[in-house]
């Protein structure tokens, strides 16, 4: 059995139709329950009916277009209002600019400053506050002087001696600070020698070169406490500024460390300049992001007669060694060199 497609379709179309029971028609007719007359599809539909389900894409598009038009119109209205405001402000500004030179020539401000009164009141309040603080400072200064006098009387020394004592203490602290910077400079140079003439990147890197981290705190810095050892060391235990981390050791005038209290600076060549940062801040120049010390060239002072210049041999010694030609003696025989 190998029928063709046409034969199959023809046989299918000629299929027999099963006949229903004759009683089925009566049952179906009896079960007819027509909906109420006049009920529309929109009322019967579960979601707006057939009309809505058919037309909702068009309705949605129309609603979207209307919404876009409304938004566009409202934005245009706002833009027009803003343009009017800008024009009004521009006109007002032009009037003020035109009126300002005339007021300056008269020395009187004809244009009212909206914030002038408030600013004046603020300045007055600031002045009042500063006056109060000055009065408090004066009272503190007087109290300080009185306490100094009382302390000196209690110790049995004069006020001048107490002042000298304080100065001596400050000087000792300054010398100790210089010593600290010397040690820091030496440690940095040692580190650089071992690391291709490059200075250390931070203080912690010099832990092998520095005997103790206590040298990182200036004696005059009462706000910081030196670390007991490198294990407990943090940047809160440092008074000095490290201005050339990972810098080159081959720039001798570059400032490596600086004490912000005394103004001492340690240069890349290891030398420490005392208080230069405070006494001559103009000698420090930023060049390519590096702080360099450039001292002005001093004019050479003529040496006093008979004085020995540094690096120059005594004239008598020079004569002795034949470095200075002796005055010409026509008849004298040439001096023989000592045998």
């Amino acid at each position, binding site marked *: 059995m190998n029928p063709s497609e046409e034969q*199959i*379709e023809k046989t*299918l179309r*000629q*299929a027999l139709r*099963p006949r229903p029971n004759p009683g*089925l028609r009566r049952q*179906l*007719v009896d079960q007819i329950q027509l909906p109420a007359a006049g009920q529309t599809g929109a009322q019967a539909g579960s979601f707006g009916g057939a009309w809505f389900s058919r037309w909702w894409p068009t309705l949605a598009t129309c609603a979207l277009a209307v919404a876009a038009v409304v938004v566009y119109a409202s934005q245009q209205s706002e833009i027009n209002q803003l343009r009017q405001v800008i024009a009004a402000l521009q006109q007002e500004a032009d009037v003020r600019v035109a009126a300002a030179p005339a007021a300056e020539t008269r020395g009187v401000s004809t244009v009212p400053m909206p914030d002038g009164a408030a600013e004046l009141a603020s300045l007055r309040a600031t002045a009042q506050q500063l006056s109060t603080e000055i009065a408090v400072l004066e009272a503190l200064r007087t109290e300080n002087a009185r306490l100094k006098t009382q302390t000196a009387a209690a110790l049995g020394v004069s006020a001048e001696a107490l002042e000298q004592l304080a100065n001596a203490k400050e000087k000792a602290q300054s010398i100790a600070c210089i010593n600290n910077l010397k040690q820091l400079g030496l440690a940095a140079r040692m580190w650089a020698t071992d690391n291709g003439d490059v200075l250390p990147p931070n203080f912690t890197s010099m832990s092998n070169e520095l005997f103790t981290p206590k040298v990182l705190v200036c004696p005059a810095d009462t706000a910081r406490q030196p670390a007991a050892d490198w294990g407990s060391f943090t940047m809160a235990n440092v008074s000095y500024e490290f201005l050339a981390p990972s810098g080159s050791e081959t720039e001798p005038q570059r400032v490596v460390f600086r004490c912000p209290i005394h103004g001492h600076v340690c240069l890349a060549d290891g030398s420490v300049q005392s208080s230069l940062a405070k006494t001559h801040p103009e000698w420090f120049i930023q060049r390519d992001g590096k702080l360099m010390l450039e001292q002005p060239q001093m004019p050479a002072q003529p040496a006093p007669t008979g004085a020995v210049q540094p690096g120059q041999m005594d004239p008598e010694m020079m004569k002795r060694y034949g470095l200075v030609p002796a005055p010409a003696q026509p008849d004298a025989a040439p001096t023989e060199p000592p045998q």
Partner: protein
Amino acid sequence: MNADETQLVEAAKRGELRAATELVDRFYEALFAFLRRLAGNEADAADLTQKTFARVWPALPRFAGRSSVSSWLHGIAHHVYQDWRRANHRLEPRPDEWWEDCPDPRHTPDRLAADADLAAALYGAVDRLEPDLRSTVHLHHYQGLTLEETADALGVAASTVKYRLRSAVQQLQARLAEKTSPSSTLNLSRKP
């Protein structure tokens, strides 16, 4: 689309009982035949036909006339059959030989035996097709719906109906060829 049938539906919408009765008279036999072939027995087919018309009357106001009344009713019947099949867990078809119960007035007793064999084998093969293909063949070939009406009833595109019909015919042709292959003949001959 038959304007007369559409007018009947409109009249039924207005509550005219005579129009509704006329609709029953015109379509209940076709719907019963459709459901009888699908359901496999007389009682279920009659029950499903009643359920179909029970759904038709409340749905009358939603009939917009975009499809023919026939395809609309067949669509409802198809949905009723699918609901019934799911509810009864009859996911696999259980074909019965419905054609043997139906007297055929169109053929004379001298009809060739070969044609009868072909028809029986063909109808049996149709009932063993996949559900989608089977429904399409039933609606288009057995019920006589056009391609568009079949597509409306099944809720698919006309091109899908064409594809399904083409696949169905090819599968039927292959199955009928298998039935008469030499191997099957050999197997039959070995039976004791």
